[in-house]
């Protein structure tokens, strides 16, 4: 799906369904998601091996839902909010070392303007555009192999965010989809385990999207995740889906 020019339409309200399952019972779920009634949805997947990625992920999605204009000032405000959570000097050497190394998380933000859906994706959380049960486009990854790369993630350690300055943000981290061209469009935001599963099965019959569409409750989502993990088809990781069916 090609890039489309900015729409002059107003930002559309939408009401995604959100479900999430931790990597294992009793473990902290480091995925976070949020949506606003102004047509903005955000998902963040905190990297397990980092100091406090759950808090970092929550800060990122809250801020994106409030203000979806990601830039240097946006990131600085998020960093400031995270820094206020911890008193570095009072941490033990272990905690201080981990704090200094940084906490890491993806950020996937989606907003709708009329028939245009704009996606910001930093890291390995995936936006999926569907037309009925067909996968029409995915971003930023398109093949299962891409999930084996080390993803670029937003960090609470500013030196680890240098990649943002080295890249063309519009080209590398954003895409716009024209859903007006589709008969029955839906948009999913998913963390990497489910993104890998969808892209790996995108051409299967029956469509993986049809199965996801049937998941109406948290319990049904948890059963699906448990079943696919047991079958060895879904990576054991925090698993989240924000779905805007029939948007």
């Amino acid at each position, binding site marked *: 799906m090609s890039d489309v020019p900015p729409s002059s339409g107003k930002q559309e309200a939408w009401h995604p369904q959100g479900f999430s399952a931790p*990597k294992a019972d009793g473990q902290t779920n480091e995925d976070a998601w949020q949506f606003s009634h102004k047509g903005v949805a955000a998902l963040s997947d905190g*990297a*397990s*091996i*980092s*100091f*406090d*990625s759950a808090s970092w992920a929550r800060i990122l999605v809250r801020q994106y839902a409030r203000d979806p204009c990601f830039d240097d000032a946006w990131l*600085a405000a998020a*960093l400031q909010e995270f820094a206020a959570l*911890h008193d570095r*000097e009072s941490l*033990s*050497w*272990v*905690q*201080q*070392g*981990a704090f*200094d*190394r940084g906490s890491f998380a993806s950020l996937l933000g989606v907003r709708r303007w009329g028939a245009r859906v704009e996606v910001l994706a930093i890291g390995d959380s995936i936006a999926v555009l569907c037309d009925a049960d067909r996968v029409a486009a995915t971003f930023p990854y398109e093949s299962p192999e891409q*999930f084996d790369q*080390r993803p670029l993630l937003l960090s609470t*350690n*500013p*030196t680890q965010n240098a990649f943002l300055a080295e890249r063309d943000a519009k080209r590398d981290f954003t895409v716009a989809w024209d859903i007006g061209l589709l008969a029955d469009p839906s948009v999913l935001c998913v963390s*990497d*385990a489910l993104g890998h599963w969808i892209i790996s099965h995108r051409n299967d019959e029956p469509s993986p999207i049809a199965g996801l569409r049937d998941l109406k409750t948290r319990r049904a989502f948890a059963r699906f995740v448990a079943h696919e993990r047991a079958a060895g088809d879904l*990576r*054991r*990781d*925090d698993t989240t889906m924000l779905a805007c069916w029939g948007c």
Partner: protein
Amino acid sequence: MPYSTEISRDHPTALIFVIDQSESMVEPLAGGRAKAEFVADVLNKTLYTLVTNCSKAEGVRRYFDIGVLSYFGDSVADGFGRAINGHSLICPITDVADAPLRVEERTRKADDGTGGVIEQKVKFPVWFEPKAVGRTPMRAGLTRAAEIVAEWCDTHPQSYPPTILHVTDGESTDGDPQDVADTMRQLHTADGNALLFNLHVSAQGAQEVVFAREEGGLADEYARMLFRMSSPLPPHLAGLAGDRGYSVANGARGFIFNASPQLIVDFFEIGTRPRLISADR
């Protein structure tokens, strides 16, 4: 495919450091610091990095078991300073985190988040003290390491195999260690043979040999022996070395001769970077 098991709390791996602390380690490296001091500092930083990389706000996760052995005089010692009898010479990284000898306060330069640089105080733990005493009982040191590796492989058959980083600056004084090294490299888990990497530290500005592939071009029999004692680098570690700018041919070994200070740092960093399971990255 060997060396493909991802490291997790269910399947930790082992890192064993074997450090020469013989008298010649008192000699200065290029830059002026004694070899023993510099190596101890790099080892402490490596342990610090390993611990903090395994740490979250709520605690340290056990991805590694760690052993540190030193040899000097007529002795092999536990590098953590404990009496060698009555306890295992390898312990979970969670125990390492709990027991530094002391925590020093150091300063370093850090990004202030707005493009500037600030001086920042850092709490820095010390586990391993520099020492340079007597002869070089390399054979005894590696034998002890092999015993640890054998026992660990028996109890962790599904894990990524142990990595042994051996640092020395001189020839063995208690016999030829090659057969011990050969035996150690044959020890294995289901994921492959134990990896023995050898680093020779040079006091002089002698010609460095980095990740050699053949022994033909090496200067003397001692260098050739250390080459033969070294495991080939698995592809993911060769890739890491390549990312750091080293030219690593297919089949190159984890072997560095006449290492400068920067090479010592890189050797430790490359050798201690096995892969964590994706869910834990």
